[in-house]
């Protein structure tokens, strides 16, 4: 869809049309919301901030001796901040504790065993599991069990900063408040065992959480049930070391197959009850006040909000992933089509005389000009060097800067000048077509420069009488700047390779305004250029195609154009392009159900243009969204590696496109940065045009040229 821009008009555009800052705010906040949803969902599946590192055991020089040899419950709160104390479970008392849950498969079974024996126990839950299984938490609380915190994402806290530890606890409390309306002051660090395992790295964690009001509960007996050693082993490990001693037993209700745990639990209870043990919760065994307190007000509602949002996120994700898959499918599909079809086109265009006898009769070159003072002379001079017989008609569309005078003053023998009042580019072109002496008209822009052979190459395909129009190869001239290099890559890859593909499928949707040729007959048949859309070149191309003419791409007909040199200019150009293309697609929508050549275009060309030109770029932000999510919250290196692979593939394809176009590949070093700056800008433009099209745009569909926002369409030459 390479079309030429008109630089000077965009400079003349009134200030109020300068893009409002809001155009970034809306898309960006939408993306931010989606990112938040992704993170919420990632939290509940314990994908976000996941950290599997486990600290090695180190020296215990800083841990007080009496804590190492003391009971499993450490109190470092309030008065005990300086000198933490530990408590033992009283004799003939046992506390069962279940870590890592709740899990939908095993927790209900454990709960029913406990219920059958009318026993209360402790569940140290993770925040992630809590958000995922709110119903189970309510059941645990309802059955009278005690809940403790086991952090949100189950990291080894010895590796985490204070703020992260604080976040882990606060977030888990938030989840608990949301699902069951309670907070808990009991805490057990992940990867912990008995109090004697405290060391210089994890003891500060215990002191830190103690200072924040948490009672830390280690264990007496580790059953190692997660290793699935067999029911017998688990039961044996759960038995007290000295008969009658109180004990805190560790079991797990999540994290894998817990069938052995459930079976062993039954036996442990029976055995210990036989020995006269009493089963209870930690706070009850220690005679302390309840560990769980109900929450009200803001905390409760914040929790409910969090859980609600997470649920929404969990249900939205499949949709997002589906759309992402669609983007991937479209992008890879486009790559594949290009890789298959571009070589076909390249081979075909190498054949000499493929179009029939060489075309030699003179043609008319139309140069619509509106305030092209700086460039018109060079444009005409480049035409003077043409190696093909031409007649040039400059149509001055009411310029105010003396463009016409310059043309007159140059007094070139082959140039005719038409002065008319300003009426827009389509009207200028129509006037030119009416005045053209020859049957073939070449259209170019007032600030484009042709090579000597451009016209000859461009008109050769007209040797085939079925060909109604030819698209040339527009090149970026000012490619030395960063923004120029980006557009150069885009032209070579996006436009030229695209056009080869469409050519092979015989559905070229756009002949660039900077370089194209038409049979006068074909133009007349469709009623000439129209000002229904902002993209008159796409409009006329689709019309000619629907009328049954063939349109081909002449890659060697090169025209050098000046790409926008600032982001502001680029923005207005692209806004006009994408909005104009949408208008043109909408205008020709009936082609989808039409018969004959129009139907062929409507059922092959139009869907491809919509998919590759609108749907894929509109969904492209999802790629960045998942990229950002992957880098910031989950596995950064894996994400970056796969993204790097994608870029590498694109670079390879671009390199191929550059080779086909006989361009040096140096500009490709700008590709990585293009992917993280330019691409985003392009889809935000597209989003903005889509919003315009879907809202006010349709009402003013026919006559929007000089009204309101779409006056972003410059008063065209």
């Amino acid at each position, binding site marked *: 869809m390479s079309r030429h821009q008109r630089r000077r008009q965009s400079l003349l555009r009134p200030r109020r049309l300068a893009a409002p800052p809001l155009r970034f705010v809306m898309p960006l906040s939408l993306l931010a919301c989606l990112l938040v949803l992704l993170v919420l969902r990632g939290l509940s599946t314990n994908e976000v901030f996941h950290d599997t*590192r486990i600290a090695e055991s180190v020296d215990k020089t800083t841990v007080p001796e009496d804590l190492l040899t003391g009971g499993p419950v450490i109190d470092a709160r309030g008065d005990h901040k300086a000198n933490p104390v530990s408590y033992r479970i009283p004799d003939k008392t046992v506390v069962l504790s279940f870590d890592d849950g709740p899990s939908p498969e095993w927790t209900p079974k454990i709960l029913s065993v406990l219920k059958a024996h009318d026993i209360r126990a402790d569940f140290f839950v993770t925040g992630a599991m809590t958000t995922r299984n709110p119903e189970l938490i309510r059941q645990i609380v309802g059955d009278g069990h005690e809940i403790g915190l086991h952090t949100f994402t189950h990291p080894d806290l010895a*590796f*985490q*900063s*204070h703020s*992260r530890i604080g976040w882990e606890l606060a977030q888990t409390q938030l989840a608990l408040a949301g699902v069951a309306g309670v907070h808990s002051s009991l805490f057990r660090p992940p990867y912990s065992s008995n109090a004697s395992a405290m060391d210089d790295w994890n003891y500060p964690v215990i002191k830190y959480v103690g200072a924040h009001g948490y009672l830390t509960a280690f264990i007496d007996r580790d059953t190692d049930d997660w290793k699935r050693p067999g029911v017998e082993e688990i039961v044996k490990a759960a038995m007290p070391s000295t008969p009658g001693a109180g004990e805190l037993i560790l079991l797990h209700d999540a994290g894998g197959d817990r069938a052995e745990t459930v079976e062993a639990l039954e036996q442990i209870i029976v055995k210990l009850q036989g020995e006269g043990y009493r089963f209870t919760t930690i706070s009850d065994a220690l005679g302390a006040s309840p560990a769980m307190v109900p929450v009200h007000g803001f905390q409760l509602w914040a929790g409910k909000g969090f859980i609600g949002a997470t649920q929404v996120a969990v249900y939205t994700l499949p949709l997002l992933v589906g759309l992402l898959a669609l983007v991937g499918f479209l992008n890879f599909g486009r790559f594949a089509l290009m890789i298959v079809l571009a070589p076909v086109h390249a081979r075909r265009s190498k054949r000499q005389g493929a179009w029939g006898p060489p075309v030699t009769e003179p043609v008319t070159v139309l140069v619509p000009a509106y305030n092209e003072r*700086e*460039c018109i*002379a*060079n444009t005409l*001079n*480049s035409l*003077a*060097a043409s190696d093909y017989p031409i007649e040039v008609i400059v149509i001055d569309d009411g310029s105010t800067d003396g463009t016409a005078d310059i043309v007159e003053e140059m007094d070139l023998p082959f140039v005719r000048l038409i002065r008319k009042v300003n009426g827009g580019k389509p009207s200028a072109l129509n006037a030119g077509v009416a005045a053209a002496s020859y049957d073939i008209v070449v259209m170019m822009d007032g*600030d484009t*420069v042709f*090579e000597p052979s451009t016209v000859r190459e461009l008109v050769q395909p007209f040797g085939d009488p079925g060909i109604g129009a030819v698209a040339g190869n527009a090149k970026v*001239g*000012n*490619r*030395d*700047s*960063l923004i*120029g*290099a980006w557009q150069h890559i885009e032209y070579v890859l996006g436009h030229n390779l695209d056009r080869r593909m469409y050519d092979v499928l015989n559905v070229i949707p756009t002949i660039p305004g900077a370089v194209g040729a038409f049979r006068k007959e074909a133009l007349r048949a469709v009623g000439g250029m129209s000002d229904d859309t902002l993209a008159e070149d796409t409009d006329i191309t689709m019309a000619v195609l629907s009328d049954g003419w063939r349109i081909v791409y002449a890659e060697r007909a090169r025209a*050098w*154009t*000046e790409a926008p040199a600032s982001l502001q200019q680029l923005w207005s150009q692209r806004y006009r392009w994408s909005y104009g293309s949408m208008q043109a697609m909408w205008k020709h929508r009936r082609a989808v159900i039409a018969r004959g050549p129009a139907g062929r275009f409507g059922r092959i060309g139009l869907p491809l243009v919509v998919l590759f030109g609108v749907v894929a770029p509109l969904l492209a932000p999802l790629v960045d969204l998942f990229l950002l999510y992957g880098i910031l919250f989950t596995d950064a290196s894996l994400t970056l590696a796969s993204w790097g692979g994608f870029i590498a593939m694109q670079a390879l394809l671009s390199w191929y496109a550059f080779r086909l176009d006989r361009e040096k590949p*140096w*500009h490709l*070093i*700008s590709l*990585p*940065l293009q992917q993280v700056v330019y691409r985003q800008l392009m889809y935000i433009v597209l989003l903005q045009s889509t919003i315009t099209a879907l809202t006010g745009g349709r009402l003013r569909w026919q006559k929007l040229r000089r009204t309101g926002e779409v006056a972003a369409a410059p008063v065209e030459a």
Partner: protein
Amino acid sequence: MSDTIRLRIPEQLRRDLPADPPPPAARKGGRDRYLDLLRALALVRVVLYHNFGWFFLPLLFPSMGVMFALAGSLMTRSLSRPALGVIRGRLRRLLPPMWLFGAIVVALQVLDGGGPDSDGHPAWWWAKLAFWVLPLSTPPFAADGLHGFGGHLESGWATQLVVPLWYLRAYLWYVLLSPLMLKALRRFPLVTLFTPLAIVIVMNGFFPDQDVVWPRVWETANDFAMFGSCWILGMAHQEGLLRRIPQYVLPSIAPLIMVAGFWYLQTRPVDPTQQTDIEAWPIAQAVWSFGFVAMLLHISPSWEQWPAPLERWNGLVSLLNSRAVSVYLWHVTALVCAVPLIDRLWEVDFFYAHLKWLLTSQWFTLLVGIPLLALLVLVFGWVEDVAARRRPRLFPYPRRPRRLRGRRRNA
């Protein structure tokens, strides 16, 4: 348009265009406000960093690389004159402020128990004082064992005070070697530009124990290499080398270089519970600063006048620029002195009862430190003017003549 034309139209057919505005030639006089702004930002960032110690500050703005690049650029501009005279001029401007600083710091150390006999080698002590005269290596200071003036300061206060000195040492070496580096740059631009980076990578990548040479030499060489590429980048900028390559190249590559530096940093955590500070990894520091400085120099808009939104900062920026050495030398002193002053406030009941959060806040240290710094600059800053053979001024905050301002508004 002219690019396109030059590319594609045969010369005889070209019509002369109003040429693109010529790339701003090497500036003869006048100040480039953009460079002034960068220098001021660098100074502010250094003060903030030494107060807060936030790990992200050096990433946000690698002050040291920027300062050296600016200095390299200025040095190159001067080197159109005979090299020896230029070096002498630079030293004359650099050393007197440092001598003043050194005289005071050494005197304070002696007063506080860090005299010639403090480490048992009086001869060495006197000999090493030579580095306070010409800082080819780090000037000596009492690492600890000071009394802290009756316990008001930590015993290692001298260590803190001399933190900024490495910059002067590195600067001295850059100045001394600049004529050579400039010659090399003109002869082999790319090789010269990347040699310091290569040196720092070899030194730190292959000799992590730093035991190959005497620590003083290592330290000097390492600092030199770490920011050497930035200095040379500044030289290349002044020479117009950066404008000679296609303009898309630098902004395409520099971010990739920065990403490489960032990746190096991220993959080498020092403490798993904390974000790593880039100052901990010379390679990361060198690479990140290089990429960042390259971007800044690429942008380099050459402001003869302030852009309107920045004009209000003119006073502060000018002040910081004309007192850059003083601010840099004395800012740590100001921050160190702020601590015992704040400590006195703990004894005030009201503060103890209601404003503990304020007294423990790092922001409060900054709040007290800045007036102290202003005072120190007021007292010692004039030496910069003397060194530059200007009329000494107390506080060079520029004031625009009232009449001129009025005329401007009328226009």
